[in-house]
């Protein structure tokens, strides 16, 4: 599942980030429902996030945003585009 209209190499999907790597959310793909839900947990455009860990065999991705840890299912994490460096 590839991001639509992805441009630079600096931009990665949240699933591609290494544990410990930090970045800024560039965009969240998906319907209004998913966007609103992610936003209530602080996952929205412009926010700085740090990937804490990714559980084995396609398990959830854990990120830290605004000093809170949030666990995100892998499919949902694939819809979050992050710019790092």
């Amino acid at each position, binding site marked *: 599942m590839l991001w639509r209209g992805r441009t630079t190499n600096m931009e990665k999907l949240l699933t591609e980030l290494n544990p410990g790597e930090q970045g800024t959310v560039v965009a969240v793909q998906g*319907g209004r429902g*998913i966007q609103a*839900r992610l936003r*209530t947990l602080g996952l929205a455009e412009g926010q700085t996030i740090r990937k804490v*860990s990714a*559980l*084995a065999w396609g398990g959830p991705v854990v990120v830290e945003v605004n000093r809170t840890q949030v666990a995100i299912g892998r*499919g949902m994490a694939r819809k979050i585009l992050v710019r790092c460096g």
Partner: protein
Amino acid sequence: MRTSVAGESTRSAEQRPRKHLENDILLVGQPNVGKSVLFSHLTGVRTIASNYPGTTVSFAMGRMRGKGSTLIVMDAPGTYSLEPLDEAARVTVDLIDDAKRIINVVDSTHLERHLPMTLELIAQNKPMVVALNMSDEARHKGIGIDVEKLSVELGVPVVAIAARSGEGVKHLIDACLDLRPGHRPSGNESGHPGHHPHIQHPFPAGRSGAAPEHAHLDRDRIWRRVGELVERVQTLEHHHHTFADRLEELSIHPLWGSLFALVVIALSFSLVRLIGEFLITGAVGIVGKPWLELPFGTELLFEKILQPPLIRLSGLLGPGSFPHRLLIGTLVEGRIDFMQSFGILTSGLFIPIGVVLPYLLSFYFVLSLLEDSGYLPRLAVFLDNFMHRIGLHGYAIIPTLLGLGCNVPGIMATRILESRRQRFVTASLISIAVPCAALQAMIIGLVGRRGIGPVLVVYGTLFVVWLLISLVLRFTTREFQPELLVEIPPYRLPTARALATKMWLRISGFVREALPIILTAIVAVNVLYQLNLFTYVARFAEPVVTRVWGMPSEAVVPLLVGILRKDVALGLFAPLELTGKQLIIGSVVLAMFFPCIATFVVLFRELGFKGGLKSIGIMLLAVFLTGGALNLIL
């Protein structure tokens, strides 16, 4: 392949008739912000509070005295915004409409995440106070908040509190009583921006309930406004890594976290067993020979203290008479056997107090520790992958664990799950394959007499049944599966106060609700035996009970009593002189066959009539096959 738009599925949920619930003060806030703790402080009503999002799935009501008047306070389930995404949040939105005053409980350590809803609430034009909870934790983390400035910016009173210790709660009550119902303190009741020179309207115009396009635009404005607010009122100091931080990193690490989870689970089960056995027998040990035996425990209490007067009573009544049968029960080899005699004063007291209560105490102590520490959401994250493979959601583990205590709160807790299918599957699995603590105590007490092996076979079978039913349902009911999206709370040291409150609530609930049913069940059994009514039922049920499951036909009695209480029902196997195999099959079949009456009622209430019937159908098929399979294999 999982694809998802989480939350979308619940939009189409059935339209419930809206209940009108008058309340003077409504506590509103996001999940796991401490509303329940604050509620207990305000009203003195004890509620169950834990450290994971979704503890309160319905609302609690209590009274608060203040300045000569009594106010009704309501504790609503947590919601992330006024656009409800699950059943619990929908309840809150209904309640807000009927509220006279609102206390918006906010987490001081995460202002930027909580203020959006504060702004939505302010736009509702209800008199309200903002309670900045966990201000102690914020101080600890080096987060400074200018409370006065925030109050001016928002145009509503703001009070810093720490609900766990009670700090600032008095101020909050005062601020709340100063609110006049129907009037906004900032003086802009009309909903237009205020003209007071120092008070800006926090979020001009745009009430919720506007057209979707508008609501979307409004959300962007809300988020921008929150960004400004936080910039202005919050200062951050550098925060040093603490032990809790290290533990947090470790317990979410792909490898160490899995080991950590295994250790926590093994430790929890051992602890339940250790404390439970100690309270019953006074022996300290988990398996095999105990390390230490103390003159303590409920067994000793019954054998040494209750036995002598009961023997005298037995002589007085004369064995064989009906009063004797009712009060003492039947003598086993001329003696009172607390497990087998089945009189009101013998087994009727021994089963609930001597066997079940110790295990309930022990189970709820360990569960409360897990709940309050904040570990459960982490466990949900770890199990999410496995759970998805069998068609469930990681968070479904929390209702399931609660179900191991009592199926009733377990099934109610399935409301934290988003989709109807998830709720149906999780609740059905709890009612069929998750034995409650009372039944488990009896399984350990009765089946355990034949060694640890048979106990493990019973547990193993129930686990396989749980697994198989979820797999079958996964492949037969194709529906989209919402993905996990959950906030992981920080670790917190459980407080003795919260622990004691929770234990008290759960144990007193057992005494109040279960004890009368247990005694009723025992009376019913004795009356029916006396009238010899069971022989007819036994003959009717014989084809299945005897031919398929390989049990004696009298085993139908415990199975029927199981509809009232499972613990008493299992006790009825004791006098039947079953073989080891029959006892295992009996225990498994009893655990699965019709849920007890309390669970039955809640199951139908939560799943609806059709859902309940479907669930019962699955149960009947599963129990028929499982009992038959065990009879063939063992």
